[in-house]
């Protein structure tokens, strides 16, 4: 039966074949290289898919077509853009800090690739099952602000510096409420490991099981992660009308493409994290008591569930981007410190009470 072959079986057979043909150390090295290539391939394919989806969604929401010339329905537009960026020259401004200017895009991209390590894509498919998985993703993904500040500082451009400073203020403040909303679910699970969080949602996902605190935490997390991604309505860091392009004003060619890639990579990672923590990761949709329905849901592979949920959240964030106008910087900070943070602290206390009393569905 073809349907019963899962992604975990394929990975397992590759693992056994490598261990038979090579010595254990060489096999481990080969697996590390293969894993890295798989992640890079996944990210590039997903970034191209997301750029195309974003432009199409933007078009349809603004009552126009979006790209529709290159390939069938413009499907090769993103590929053509990547080829164009490959051929462009990477310019460096005359008085820029050359080393920092060159390192910044690599740092941002490397950080966003690192967050893939503890992700679980399908049953048994995970690179690194650490006991602090969610904490690792949250902390590593917030490192990208260093790269952004480096890019803004090294560019020797007032717009780039202003954009980078805004981005710093924004990411540092919104880290708090996104972390607190993740902690709400972590409290209920009792573990930071991504695998444990997914396994605890076998009967029902946390957004349904966790009563109102889980729903509030989900809303807060979506708002805060949109702000962390520097996407509209929180795209002050690259507000076109005020700052031309923010921290990547001076970048061109592949250096610009790497910022672009890391932006979409971060969008993908934060959506994956939201899907894992709130919507059950690769866990199918189960309703306690309905055996036939649960068995039917089990036939859909875990990969489909996982990417389906991830793309649902990505669509939601894109929907925000093409609906809401941009906030001012004071409104942005007011939203975080006067609304999201108090709400998520109160929410966390309620979640702690629910956990102590064991009032789950």
């Amino acid at each position, binding site marked *: 039966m073809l349907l019963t072959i899962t992604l975990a079986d394929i990975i397992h057979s590759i693992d056994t074949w490598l261990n038979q043909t090579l010595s254990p150390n060489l096999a481990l090295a080969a697996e590390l290289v293969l894993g890295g290539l798989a992640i890079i391939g996944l990210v590039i394919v997903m970034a191209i898919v997301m750029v195309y989806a974003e432009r199409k969604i933007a078009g349809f929401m603004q009552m126009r077509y979006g790209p529709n010339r290159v390939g069938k329905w413009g499907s090769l537009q993103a590929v053509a853009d990547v080829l164009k960026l490959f051929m462009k020259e990477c310019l460096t401004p005359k008085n820029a800090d050359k080393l920092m200017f060159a390192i910044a895009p690599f740092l941002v991209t490397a950080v966003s690739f690192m967050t893939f390590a503890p992700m679980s894509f399908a049953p048994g498919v995970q690179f690194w099952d650490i006991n602090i998985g969610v904490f690792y993703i949250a902390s590593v993904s917030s490192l990208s602000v260093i790269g952004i500040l480096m890019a803004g500082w090294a560019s020797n451009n007032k717009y780039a510096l202003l954009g980078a400073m805004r981005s710093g203020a924004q990411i540092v403040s919104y880290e708090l409420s996104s972390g607190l909303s993740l902690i709400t679910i972590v409290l209920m699970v009792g573990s930071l490991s991504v695998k444990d969080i997914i396994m605890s949602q076998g009967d029902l996902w946390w957004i349904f099981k966790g009563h109102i605190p889980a729903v509030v935490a989900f809303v807060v997390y979506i708002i805060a992660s949109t702000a962390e991604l520097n996407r509209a309505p929180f795209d002050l860091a690259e507000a076109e009308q005020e700052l031309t392009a923010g921290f990547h004003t001076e970048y061109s060619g592949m250096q610009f493409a790497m910022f672009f890639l890391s932006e979409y990579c971060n969008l993908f990672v934060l959506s994956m994290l939201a899907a894992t923590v709130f919507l059950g990761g690769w866990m199918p949709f189960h309703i306690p008591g309905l055996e036939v329905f649960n068995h039917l849901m089990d036939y859909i592979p875990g990969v489909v569930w996982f990417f389906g949920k991830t793309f649902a959240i990505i669509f939601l964030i894109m929907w925000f981007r093409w*609906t*809401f106008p941009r906030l001012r910087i004071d409104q942005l900070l007011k939203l975080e410190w006067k609304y999201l943070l108090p709400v998520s602290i109160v929410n966390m206390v309620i979640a702690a009470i629910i956990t102590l009393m064991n009032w789950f569905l």
Partner: protein
Amino acid sequence: MKSIFNYYKSIFLALRSLWQGMKLTGYYFSHPKKMLVQPYPENRDTLVIPSRFKGNLTLIHDAENLHACTACGICEINCPNGTIKILSKMEEQEDGKKKKVLDKWVYHMGLCTFCGLCVDACPSDAIAFDNTFEHSAYKSTTLNKVLNNPGSKLKSTVK
């Protein structure tokens, strides 16, 4: 107490207004038939241009190749960009009088902003905009046009 109530009320009002905006864009997203944009080169044959669209400037000629331009030059004076040049000549009429008639109605489309002041100013409604809009050309000199047809004459009804 009232301030706490207002705080939570403001959150709910904000969420409601955000949802209203998302409902509208979601409606546009799910109804692609309502698209405003025309897929232009494909639907060139069925394309409908509104009749008030200011396309190409034309000097109206009727079936007998007669136009209504008296070469008074009011359009030339009214044009803010110097787009129009009316070249007139003196022609002897049948009754022996000399009269100014139109020789060439020169129109430089490259300078035109399609403001329509010439059409508004014309006392005898000799000129009008039609619906054509495909003006692209390889040379700027292609855009310099003479609007009156060769051999065209002034209508007898127009004084």
